[in-house]
């Protein structure tokens, strides 16, 4: 056709010819608000992602407290309470659930129910969409962690660290871990073949990871091969980072290398961040590719 779009006298579209970074960020923030609101309206997500670590912390504390403190001497003196021991694992599990389970199930569902197809027909940039997802994960995971710490302190009377250096470690492990989880979740959303099967595909992966990575079972009591297997995946490193914050330094000796190894935590999370980012970029489509 001879009429090109540039020849159209349309002042409003010429000013928005190419949506700039400002629009992408503005819409990203709009998506974060929208996504976060919808997250808290989904009962499934609330139960299996947001409150799951609370439920597990409650169950473990109730089930194992009678056996006494963990890591004490032969007379049961010293060490930390069962609740205190499991807190870092539950924080790590929350990070994994908020990112991986939440997004993998959520995006697989959006793919099959037509949400993504609809968005793909609008001028929403995929980048804004991802900003919305990652922002939602970050906001909800932060609320979850804050609430978990509050419950630990108030209901379970668990001592929290007072050293600012510990909290600095907490901050970077948390931020790094949550963003890594979010990207891994986006990448994993490509796996389920339908929205209905998404939970069945994603939940077992996440559950097995929690068992082998020291969330439910004391990591240091697991056989070497299982510890080595868990080291391939990011959850083990998130849990280790969190243990370094919340457990006494005497517990470091029981870790795989006899130390908290925070450099290895950073490297492992960094590698998974890159893997998740690349896979997300490669696999994501507004709609399934046509033949």
């Amino acid at each position, binding site marked *: 056709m001879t009429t090109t779009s540039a020849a*159209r006298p349309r002042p409003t579209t010429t000013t928005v010819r190419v949506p700039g970074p400002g629009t992408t960020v503005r819409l990203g923030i709009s998506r974060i608000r929208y996504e976060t609101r919808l997250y808290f309206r989904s009962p499934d997500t609330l139960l299996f992602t947001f409150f799951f670590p609370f439920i597990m912390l409650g169950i473990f504390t109730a089930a194992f407290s009678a056996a006494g403190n963990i890591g004490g001497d032969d007379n049961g003196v010293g060490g930390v309470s069962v609740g205190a021991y499991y807190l870092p694992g539950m924080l790590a599990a929350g990070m994994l659930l908020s990112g991986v389970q939440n997004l993998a199930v959520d995006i697989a569902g959006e793919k099959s129910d*037509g949400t993504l197809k609809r968005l793909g*027909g609008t001028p929403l940039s995929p980048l804004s969409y991802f900003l919305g997802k990652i922002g939602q994960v970050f906001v909800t995971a932060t609320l979850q962690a804050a609430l978990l710490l509050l419950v630990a302190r108030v209901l379970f009377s668990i001592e929290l660290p007072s050293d600012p250096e510990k909290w600095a470690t907490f901050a970077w492990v948390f931020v790094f871990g949550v963003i890594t989880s979010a990207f891994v979740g986006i990448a994993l959303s490509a796996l389920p073949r339908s929205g209905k099967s998404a939970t069945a595909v994603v939940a077992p992966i996440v559950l097995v990871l929690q068992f082998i990575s020291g969330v439910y079972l004391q990591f240091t009591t697991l056989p070497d091969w299982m510890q080595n297997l868990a080291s391939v995946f990011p959850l083990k490193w998130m849990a280790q980072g969190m243990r370094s914050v919340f457990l006494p330094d005497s517990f470091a000796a029981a870790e795989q290398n006899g130390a908290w190894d925070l450099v290895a935590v950073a490297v492992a999370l960094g590698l998974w961040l890159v893997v998740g980012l690349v896979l997300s970029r490669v696999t994501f489509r507004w709609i399934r590719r046509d*033949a």
Partner: protein
Amino acid sequence: MTPNALTNTGPVVRVQDLRKSYGNFEAVRGISFSIAAGETFALLGPNGAGKSTTIEILEGYRGRDSGEVSVLGVDPHRGGLDWKARLGIVLQTSAETGNATVTEQLRHFAGFYPNPRDIDEVIDAAGLRGKARTRISKLSGGQRRRVDVALGIIGRPELLFLDEPTTGFDPEARHQFWDLIRTLKGEGTTILLTTHYLDEAAQLGDRAGIIAGGRLIEIGPIDELGGADARVPLVRWRDASGRPREQRTDSPARLVADLVAAADGAEPDELEIIRPSLEDVYLGLVRDDEAKIPATDVPTTAGLIQKEMRA
């Protein structure tokens, strides 16, 4: 802002010899048509005829094997966000869980567009005033469909795709919807409509194309489809011996007068004069076309759905 329908002389949509196959199945076999600015064009045809494939290629969702396509002056395959901002798309199916309310959803989507319509106006126009604060998941099928339409027009599109927009509407809702579309037409919006309701195509469409077996078997102004012959009135009656009779004639009144005269003034039994509706014309065209194609060539709906899913 109104779309510059009047100042823009070129076609808004131009399709030239479009072809698309899924594996060995040729869904679209060389379709050509164009849609002028401000026009409402209805794409009609049986399920599995290639309508959805064609419309999805125009919307930018699907690639094509060959042929030229231009939508608002842009090849949909290369259409960027600025191009999408000028389109409104109402998809054939949507099954979103819908935890947002109608107003929230419209406000959120309005933010995507440079010059959106007023949210309250769209809610009123779509007949959703009473449901504005209701979550979409709590709406009936017909009400959800209105939300789909509202989301399609919220960005003030120059070109609106409506893929079977009124499926599940009750008659009153359908008439309200038609009024809404007439308003959009009045504002100069170009519309591509697919529908199985031929009365809807007749009400809204300026021109129509009929697709069957991946080919465009007819195209023209709605009231000229099928040619003059297809619209010759039909007179039916039962003759004195009780035999059903029918005759096509351009002068049905004269034929009836002759019948009465021939029967010495007696009323003919079960007399009817029928002017073929668009539906009659359409069914005639599609039947004629099916008769021309060998049976193995006609795709079944189920077969096509399977192919689309694999795609």
